[in-house]
């Protein structure tokens, strides 16, 4: 037995185990394609705004049918309202992870979450 092992008390082992448990438990929470750090809002396919996901802001984006309202909050973004007939982008709710996107096709507006690293380049939907 190595001498230093004798210096560890039962409480120290508990701390080590607790540390391992916390790290293991956090893997599925944080290993979701890196941290989200901004929301990219596009109008007619062109970047309308790149918003830091630490901020809290609302954006009105004009499209052929009217205005799409987008809300950005710390760590998440969503389409609040849209003049499109089917409302799919509104119903998608909050987007949180890098790559997630809500597309309001009729009004030609989209909002996508981006992170420092890109987990995937595009999405088949």
């Amino acid at each position, binding site marked *: 037995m190595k001498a230093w092992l004798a210096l560890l008390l039962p409480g120290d082992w508990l701390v080590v185990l607790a540390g391992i448990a916390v790290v293991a438990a956090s893997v599925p929470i944080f290993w979701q394609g890196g941290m989200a750090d901004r929301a990219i809002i596009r109008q007619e396919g062109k970047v309308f705004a790149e918003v830091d996901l630490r901020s809290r802001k609302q954006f009105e984006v004009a499209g052929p049918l009217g205005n799409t309202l987008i809300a950005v909050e710390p760590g998440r973004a969503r389409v609040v309202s849209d003049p499109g007939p089917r409302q*799919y982008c509104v119903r998608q709710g909050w987007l949180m992870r890098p790559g997630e996107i809500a597309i309001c096709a009729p009004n030609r507006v989209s909002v996508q979450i981006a992170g420092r690293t890109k987990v*995937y380049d595009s*999405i088949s939907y």
Partner: protein
Amino acid sequence: MRYFLSLPILLVLFVLAGCGRTPLQEQQAYVFGTRVEVLIVSAEPEQGRQAIAAVLREFDRLHRAYHAWQASELTELNAAIAAGKPRTVTPELAAFVGEAQALSRQGDYLFDPGIGELIKLWGFQADEFKAELPPPGEIKAWLAKKPSIADIVIDGNSIRSRNRHVALDFGGYLKGVALDRAAAILRSQGINNALINIGGNVMALGSKEGKKWRVGIQHPRQPGPMATVSLEDGEAIGTSGDYQRFFEVNGKRYPHLLDPRSGYPADHTQAVTVLIPAGSKAGTLSDASSKPIFIAGAAGWRDMAAQMGIAQVLRVDSNDRIFVTAALHRRLEFIGQPPAIEIVP
């Protein structure tokens, strides 16, 4: 001494240059009533811009020429069919009708581009649509007339139909064709590394500076993807989902994927994804081949996939159960916890 110092500085600069961003150009636009995304890797920005513009021009042309409910070459052909007259069309349109007919036949006409009247009856041929079921009597009347793309007779560039109630609608086919066109245009302009996404049908060319293009497969009921897959050069992937176009009446979902045998939307499936190996028709198949597999349902999807020659399939049924063929399963990568999946040989 000066030279001595500048050497490490130069080295650092070289290393930093290696960290430089991929010369990636991205453009998004709205065509075919959906979002189009083109990503290309090109050392020359001007060459890239021109190539993307050429691709988007071709998409726009296809969309206008073959629009199913706004005046187009296709609506003119449909009017001639309704009047019981033959019509001479462009070689391109004649080829499309022939190819769509062959694909439909291969899938036992479960995906039938001749059912435009039924699609219209359900209100899916409209930019605005109301959540309203068609009267059952009208669906019955449509079924009694049995219109199908099988009724179309092609003689050179002349097209006629044995059934006046056939109305061609290339939704579910044309976006796939457009992917193959885009690939051809980009390659002819010297762009060999690109990713093209038309409303969820994605085609990969080459790679992103040696790294394979990675594409997510959308979860039908969650905001993000359920898995991702890396595409080889020339491969295409496409998804048909009940979440793309649908309406709800009394809490029941009526998606746009209509079963021509019943006249009603297929309600047993949430999504079908197909991955197509490289080939000149990879894009076309990524769009058209997922439909008969979707409509075939729980008992028939696996056989239908085999019949269509599609080995890599993922299906999510109406109870959120995920089935994947072994050939596709080995390629899936998961973000976080993998979902429960049943692997089908």
